[in-house]
């Protein structure tokens, strides 16, 4: 529980501009606390001492008929991963204290550091899906702010937005798991999973497949499994220690570690095992192929790391859990250090001699009997495939690879086609709704769908900030109305959601007020004009995106479970809407506050300049 206060404290210290040394001291105390926590965990796992009651490892509280369980548990496997992650973090901390000396935004790194530490320890030691989810979201939050560490670089912030969308999309998996397994079916602790599975008669049915696949989806996002395998390389934008923490080190392995935690769930479903096995193989081969054409050091290391993640997920699918944990521990430490000393590669290569360029093994091996022309064709095809990253890198225009979403985008942006698509939707929902549900529920569903559509329109909007944000206000009101209609009464979850989103809107309107006339087709870098308004915008973003550092997390969670009593369609629509809302808020923040501004050229931290010894 002490751990929980540290990230909050660091965020507060950062927002209220506490000084660098205070932040460093906070980081050090976070590290000491975590070390103590790990040692206790070790003693408990080796059964030297029982869980001390004052440590508060287990807590339950009720909110609107739902159980929320805070539970931590150490087993040797978890302890191994947590300890190696802790060691990597410790090394990074020692490295960064001097590395960031006099750096412009060093405070940012040290404010985010305890959040990552907290996230990793809660995910590894958490014994209920609630706890894991809290840690999981915190890590995601710290990650996007570290990727956009240099917020004036356009390429970096574009990548940040993409990674944010991937994270949010995949977090749905874990959220659904927690919602269905925990709140609906009464799975309270993770180590109670085997008994829970054996007690339920439906455990071989579709629900189990669904839950397992959702867990794999969550792992896909954080661990960059196949369809998302190219984000770690895109994320090499921040300072070297943060890259080492994320894309080589502890964070990248959290996804597969979640699968190890939920191994009973994965292994009971054959479908999920096959999916995981094939995803692992695909990730391994594709990332390996792409890493061969990478000419930048960090890009190369990122793809190498992802290919190892592919291997680890294969071990999990084959139920070789101990091998997987061993692989995680070794690879985490090895890759982080490789990343930290990556600048040395230039020196080593310049003085120790260059490698001889190798040909593709395909040409030396089984394909030599082919005519030379075909050898060249196959080589170039593979090269094109890996240079374009299997067509999976999203392009600027919202398309992915060869597929292009421009037409859908245009459909949403022009007003007439918006109404056209809306009336189509109306028709479908009415036809569907009247057969299954009563009238208020159908109308509730319809209003929520309209709100989502409007939110989507706002996401693609190129208008001014003011019109876009007002549009979003309308869409949120619609969503609240729709939920109210569906629930039939103003529940506690909905009420708290209303209050919090109202606060978020209020804050964001104040933060954006000087920039209402800015168009949204480019970045404005307003952060460099007024830092206080930017900080307020960040807080409003944290609320709107439902991060666990804010009470919005609990409000959203209870909203989902209330809607689940109504129907699954409603819950999924609420998921979609809140996902879109988070993306919208992120985009608005990024477009207005991040980006190149000529004032970013001024380095505010001047080195201490002492006049040199006396002139003659």
């Amino acid at each position, binding site marked *: 529980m002490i751990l929980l206060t540290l990230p909050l404290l660091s965020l507060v210290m950062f927002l209220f501009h506490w000084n660098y040394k205070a932040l460093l001291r906070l980081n050090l105390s976070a590290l000491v606390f975590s070390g103590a926590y790990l040692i206790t965990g070790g003693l408990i796992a080796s059964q030297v001492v029982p869980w001390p009651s004052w440590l508060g490892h287990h807590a339950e509280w009720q909110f609107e008929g739902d159980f929320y369980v805070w539970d931590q548990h150490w087993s040797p496997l978890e302890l191994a991963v947590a300890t190696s992650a802790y060691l990597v973090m410790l090394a990074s901390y020692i490295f960064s204290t001097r590395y960031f000396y006099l750096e412009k935004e060093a405070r940012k790194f040290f404010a985010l550091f305890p959040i990552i530490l907290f996230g990793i320890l809660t995910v590894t030691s958490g014994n209920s899906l609630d706890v894991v989810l809290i840690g999981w979201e915190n890590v995601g939050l710290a990650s996007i702010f570290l990727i956009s560490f240099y917020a004036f*670089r356009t390429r970096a912030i574009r990548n940040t937005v993409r990674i944010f969308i991937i994270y949010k999309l995949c977090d749905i998996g874990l959220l659904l798991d927690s919602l269905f397994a925990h709140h609906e079916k009464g799975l309270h602790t993770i180590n109670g999973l085997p008994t829970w599975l054996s007690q339920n008669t439906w455990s071989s049915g579709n629900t189990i497949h669904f839950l397992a696949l959702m867990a794999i989806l969550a792992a896909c996002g954080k661990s960059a499994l196949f369809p998302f395998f190219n984000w770690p390389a895109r994320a090499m934008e921040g300072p070297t220690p943060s890259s080492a923490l994320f894309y080589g080190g502890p964070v990248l392995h959290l996804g597969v570690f979640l699968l190890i935690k939920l191994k009973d769930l994965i292994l009971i479903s054959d479908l999920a095992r096959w999916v995981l096995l094939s995803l692992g193989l695909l990730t391994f081969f594709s990332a390996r192929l792409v890493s061969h054409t990478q000419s930048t050091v960090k890009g190369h290391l990122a793809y190498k790391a992802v290919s190892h993640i592919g291997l680890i997920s294969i071990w999990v699918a084959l139920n070789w859990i101990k091998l997987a944990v061993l692989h995680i521990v070794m690879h985490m430490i090895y890759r982080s250090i490789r990343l930290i000393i990556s600048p040395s590669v230039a020196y080593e290569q310049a003085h120790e001699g260059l490698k001889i360029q190798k040909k593709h093994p395909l040409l030396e091996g089984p394909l030599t009997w082919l005519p030379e022309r075909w050898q060249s064709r196959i080589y170039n095809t593979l090269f094109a495939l890996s*240079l374009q990253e299997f067509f999976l890198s999203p392009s600027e225009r919202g398309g992915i690879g060869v597929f292009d979403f421009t037409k859908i985008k245009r459909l949403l942006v022009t007003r007439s086609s918006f109404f056209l698509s809306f009336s189509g939707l109306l028709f479908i929902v009415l036809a569907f709704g009247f057969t299954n549900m009563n009238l208020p529920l159908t109308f509730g569903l319809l209003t929520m769908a309209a709100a989502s559509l409007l939110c989507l329109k706002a996401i693609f909007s190129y208008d001014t900030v003011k019109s876009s944000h007002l549009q979003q206000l309308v869409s949120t009101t619609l969503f609240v109305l729709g939920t109210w209609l569906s629930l039939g009464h103003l529940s506690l979850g909905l009420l708290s959601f209303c209050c919090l989103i109202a606060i978020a809107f209020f804050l964001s309107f104040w933060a954006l007020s000087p920039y209402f006339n800015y168009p949204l*087709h480019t970045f404005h870098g307003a952060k460099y004009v007024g830092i206080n308004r930017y900080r307020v915008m960040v807080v409003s973003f944290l609320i709107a995106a439902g991060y666990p550092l804010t009470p919005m997390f609990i409000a959203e969670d209870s909203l989902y479970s209330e809607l689940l009593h109504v129907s699954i369609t409603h819950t999924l629509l609420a998921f979609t809407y809140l996902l879109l809302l988070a993306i919208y808020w992120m985009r608005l923040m990024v477009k207005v506050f991040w980006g190149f501004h000529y004032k970013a050229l001024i380095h505010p931290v001047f080195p201490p300049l002492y006049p040199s010894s006396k002139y003659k």
Partner: protein
Amino acid sequence: MFPDLVATPFWMALEELDLIYAWSSLLPDDYWRMFHELNWVSITPAARPQSAKEDKSDPLIKEKGFRPIHQLVNQKIKTSLNELTEPILIRYLSAYFDQGFAYRSPTIKSEGLLASFVHFIEESLIPVKPFKKKHLQKWKLKSAEELAQELLYDILPYPDYHHQYIREILISLKGWSGMIKTAEANPHLLPIPRKANLLDFVTIRLMIEWSWLKNYLGFPQITKEELKTAVGALQRDIPSRQKQHLLIDLEKNIQRRYLPSLKNCLNDYAPTTAQAEWSFVFCIDDRECILRRHLENQDPRIQTFGTPGFFGFEFFLRRHDHEHLIKQCPDPVKTDKIIKLKQDLQQNTYPWTTPKWSNLSALKSLFFIKTPKYKNTHLRLIRFEKAPPFDARTAFSLEEAALRIAQIFKSMGWSRITTSLNFIIGHHATTQNNPFFNAYGCGACSGSSGAINACVFAYFANDPEVRELLIREHSIAISQEAMFIPGAHDTTLDTVTFYSEFLEHKLPLEVLSYLSRALEQVQQERQLDYFPPTQQYSDPEKLYKFFWKQGHAIFQVRPEYGHNSVAFCYIGDREKVKSFSFERKSFLQSYDCSSDPDGIQLEGILKAAIPVCAGISLDYFFSRQNLLLGAGTKLSLNINGLFSITNGVEEDILPGLCYQMVERHIPSRINFIIEQNPELILEVLKRNESLWNYVKNEWIILWCYWERDIKKWTNDGWVTLEDSL
């Protein structure tokens, strides 16, 4: 170093930069305010620039460079054409130029970049976005120039604006265009050669832009009026014109601090009768300036000389068992001589202690760094190592060696070597985990260590046959008992290593203790870079440990401040300015004006000194405007293909130096002070057009000391010191 840039006048080049970036090429206002507070520049309250917080103006510029036509196109197509074009282009270019990091490289055609690119798309069985193969068939038949013109005409049907459009293309990836231009002019700079030219680069970029517009977005309909207003915004007030006087003020401030007292010092000089007993030959580098001053202050029997740190021997070094050649002479000097090391060097002999990328022992240095202890505390900063075993005779014949040695001695004006101990000292730096390691090394050895050159020089100068040749053909007399001892000065740690193990107990302790004490004083003075005057170390032991850790820690981003604040290059007799302190601000080249009536030696000196010293100074000058012209911060750098650095995986490559290297630099042009007849100096400079360009176009400031007065060259003629300040 900037061959064609130097051909344009300095102020015009700055204005050109302002047009490109729509922002001052000189530093932001906050910097000038801080310089004012430090008394580096005197600004009157009225002329003081606004601080960033007070400045409420909304600038036009939203990108790194100012690109009006592209901004117009982006508005029309409602997306950024840049962001669509650059990823695939940058990925292909890095793969093409890769120097051996990537496991697989694309098929390289002998015709060059464009042909390889077309071949790659054509051979691939899957589509390369955004190209379509039917277009490729037509393009293959045309030359690059025709193709570029045709594509350009489709995108922008107004030939008047094509020039501006191409300019914008080049600006948007300024690092890549500069790199390709350099590779085109000096193909030998890439160890694995790659044929490329700027036209190919422009054509490929146009091909990608055209394909996006044709296949996906539709060509933008731009009217001529819109273009006119957009491009017209370029002709705005240029901020640097307002700031030029600030730069001139700052330069004059520096000159006012040093030049009058230098003049007095030169005028007051009276030759001493003390006989020199020990001679030290150093590199002309400004970091040796401080060591020479402290060394000479120890004893009048010590004399020092300065000459470019490759000591006249130009060659490539091949380390034992390695294929890669390391250049050991200034970049403009061409050579085909190779010296091989017979066995590999010891770890401590050379500054090659960087943790290997493939070796995880680096983690150890995070937690503790061991500082070596020495028995003799007086000589803590001096070490003796075994000389690296090399094979110099196969590279240089005795005649060649004698010629090179004679040139060095003549240029320094030192024709009778009577001192018994002559120390030849190169220099290098120790730095870990640092992609800029070459920028800390010896500039005259292309950034590597000058130690091997010193060893080669001493090897030949100690050879009796070479000494005979020197007397017979070059009339340079070296006394019988004179001995040349090679060494190297580590500018980060401030230690000196002598490469002759057997001499450790034979050298007189007196001179060694002088050297050691001088090094300690250097460390004391260098503390000012790191601590305020009130918190200085007084214990030399602690200081020694501090600098050792600066050089050996893998997390250290500021091991030393390199050539920071370099402002002068003094070419003349060191003996005369012995009592004057340039304070690490000056390159020092020894030169005897009386023995050089024709200016032959001066010409040889200037040919090396002007490009190297001015190059270094301008490198620091422009990198001071760090996010536009330098490399930004060192923390997020990524090494691309072993030939460049970038941020992220698909961004533009970065020129210049990083912020941590230049943050204490006082931006000024370099002042060359030459002790010679002004007419002769001009005659020598005008003989070489490339050198004359530097002076004529004001890239350097030229001074001469002649007939008890210091004069400044302006394009109207020579001006006295009093008038010019």
